[in-house]
């Protein structure tokens, strides 16, 4: 059974179609790269997957649970990093992570251990007692990702997780996400094409809400590239050219 199943997903805002008849699935343990130009409908799709927005049409299942019928079961299985990390900037990193962990149902010593684990994983252990608004953009982003990782949910949905990080941190995060494969199912959206080539096995490219391509990276380059070794960038530009 696929971990994430999306069938004929459509999202309309009044007369504007943001997502148009999207169908795909992600197997457990897979990392899917989610690509598309700005405004293609990536964030909207992710918001529907996490139960923040309802679909206009179509079915979304996560771990076998329908997002509309059993939203709590779905939300329990997803760690989500929205486009803008959802931080309470007045709180300390520790206070914030403790709050998110308690929303996810953790408490007592399990909560404490989970906080330590995630903080170490994201390299924020030494800023735990600082107030979030005084942190650099990179650290804020890390705290945002740490929040998604709390409770080790089987599915991670990360909307442009490398945004605001410097090249070294990017490389670190890529390694981290790669390390999640197998244990977690990950959907990763990004503008940065090499990121996808380096971390994901599969790519979904959407353009104006419609699916433009959905395949293994190697396959994509072979089918759409002019040359055998065409880069993902060429494929992307070719597919999303008006």
């Amino acid at each position, binding site marked *: 059974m696929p971990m994430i199943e999306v069938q004929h997903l459509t999202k309309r805002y009044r007369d504007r179609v943001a997502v148009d008849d999207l169908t795909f699935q992600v197997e457990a343990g897979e990392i899917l790269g989610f690509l598309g130009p700005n405004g293609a409908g990536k964030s909207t799709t992710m*918001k529907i997957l*996490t*139960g*923040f*927005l*309802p679909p206009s049409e179509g079915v979304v299942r996560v771990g076998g649970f329908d997002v509309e019928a059993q939203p*709590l079961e779905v*939300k*329990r299985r*997803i760690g*989500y990093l*929205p486009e*803008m990390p*959802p*931080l*309470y*900037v*007045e*709180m300390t990193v520790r*206070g914030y992570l403790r*709050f*998110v962990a*308690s*929303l*996810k*149902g953790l*408490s007592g010593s399990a909560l404490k251990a989970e906080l330590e684990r995630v903080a170490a994983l994201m390299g924020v252990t030494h800023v735990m007692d600082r107030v979030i608004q005084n942190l650099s953009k990179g650290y804020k982003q890390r705290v945002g990702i740490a*929040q998604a990782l709390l409770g080790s949910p089987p599915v991670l949905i990360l909307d442009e997780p490398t945004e605001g990080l410097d090249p070294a941190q990017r490389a670190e995060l890529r390694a981290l996400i790669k390390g999640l494969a197998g244990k977690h199912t990950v959907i990763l959206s990004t503008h940065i094409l090499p990121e996808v080539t380096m971390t994901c096995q599969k790519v979904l490219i959407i353009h104006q809400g419609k699916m433009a391509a959905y395949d293994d990276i190697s396959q994509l380059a072979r089918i759409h590239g002019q040359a055998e070794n065409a880069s993902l960038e060429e494929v992307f530009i070719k597919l999303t050219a008006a």
Partner: protein
Amino acid sequence: MRTALAIARKELSIYFTTPWAYAVFTAMAALTAFYFMDLLQAFNDVQGVARRVGWAQMSPDFNMYRNLTDGVVVELWGSVLVITLVVTPFLSMRLFAEEKRNRTFELLMTAPVRPIEIVLGKYLGGLGVISATLALTLVFPLLLSALGHSESGLALEWSTVLLGYGALLLWGATCMAVGLFISALTESQMLAAFLTFCVLLAWMLLGQVARRAEEPLRSALSYIACDLQLQGMIKGVLDAQSLVFFASVIGFSLFLTHRTVDAQRWA
């Protein structure tokens, strides 16, 4: 329910780490102190006259000045009622509006938490901060009972004072519930505060309108006017009808808030 408490705790920690709560505390303490001094002065003046001419010669309008409870505390609670109306919007405005503006609403709505737990958690946090604000006003009756005296011994009739304080808490809880609902409607804290203030003020002014209205409109307006509903309790008469009235307003506001939060997903 544990998650609701976690949300309430988070709200309180944010209230107490930002200047807002302290600004409101200061305003409440300063304004109440101002009224308190004024009332004490009036009380003293009337007592002075009464000592010269005797109570029998005075107009019955001055009867409330015969003791500190009716002459000062009951009057003071009446002023605190109005101050509460003014300051609560500044406490309630951020409850949802801030979450939506900062996109943290997305975090709450994608966490495994029911909308009802979010609403209750936020309301509990709001109740905590409004109770703390109102607790400051207890200083004044405490001062009176420590320093004042009367013929019967005790300076204050505490049952009346505390029942009046209960009315204040009930009113604060009601203002907070209305403010919570309005905060859920908008992303702008300013707008939420302003609208909440307008709604509460209009509600309080209904009592004035009622006085001038004709029957049967008059009875209907008097029934829904908040200050008339609170009069009895402030004066120390427990009225089950008022309790039910304000509990219904709170319940209805929370219900509307819940519907609004739930409907956000369908916007």
